[in-house]
């Protein structure tokens, strides 16, 4: 088997397993109350981390680039209660403009 296929298949199987681990092991069981509360708080914790890493993360370092301007534009659009599509278009448009200027 070539190196490429070894990597593709190993990563593929591992990802399927990581995604499926909890759904397969936990079954349809409802979680105990404290665990369910933590579960509900996973979304804000992970979403906030994704915002940080994808806005200022660059591999294993922090960087300020046009994405910051794009996400700032999205924040303004959100404050103005713009619909999701407008928020996304604003982020891409401002980031593209900032990219063209730098």
């Amino acid at each position: 088997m070539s190196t490429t296929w070894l990597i593709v298949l190993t990563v593929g199987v591992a990802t399927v397993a990581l995604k499926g681990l909890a759904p397969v092991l936990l079954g349809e069981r409802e979680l105990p109350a404290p665990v369910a509360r933590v579960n509900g708080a996973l979304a804000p914790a992970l979403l906030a981390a994704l915002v940080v890493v994808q806005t200022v993360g660059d591999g294993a370092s922090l960087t300020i680039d046009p994405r910051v301007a794009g996400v700032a534009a999205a924040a303004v659009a959100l404050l103005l209660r713009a619909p999701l599509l407008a928020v996304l278009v604003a982020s891409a448009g401002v980031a593209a403009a900032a990219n063209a200027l730098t």
Partner: protein
Amino acid sequence: MGRTMAAGARDVAPIAFAALVIGMSFGILARDAGMGVVAPIVMSLTTFAGSAQMAAATVMQDGGAVAAAVAAAILLNLRYVAIGVSVAPSLRGRRARRLAEAQLATDESWAIAQDRGRVNRERMLGAGLVLLVAWTTGTVAGVLGGSALGDPATYGLDAMFPALFLALLVGQLGDGRARAAALTGALIALLLTPVAPPGVPIIAAAAGALIALKPPKEAAS
């Protein structure tokens, strides 16, 4: 297709467009890394996670070891254990079906399916299917030579993903615990990014959710 599923598919459309273009850049990167035509497409269908695939292809392009490519991709995908825990109570049916449906959980489909502290299964499946089609189609176009589009950053598409997560986060900050979890998660990610391997900061940020272990004030007696 149920109405909720269709709504998930519709709401994810702008992100699917970004996924299409980023999928294309993965295809181009994979081709340049000497991965051939079929392997990158199989990878998009099975791994279905942009950052991990990009990382694996980059290690291969740089001539890195198999173990290094696999480790980079798995570290980046460790967060799917936490996402799996979050998704698990919403899935139904036999184990094989739950395993299959869990594969449609991506950062984006999971985020867009958040509904009052739970995951709406149909919304996630609708959004996940559209993203899978967009991501794989982009990859096919990329490996077959579609380099005409150039760098996604030129169009600001790389800013669309954090913007989506921010928009979905804002809708999640209803109570004090959620705000505390978000703040803690953001701080952990910010502090760990410069010092930990990519992927670790996000999974570590899940610890921010532990703030919710404490019962809410109303329930305390």
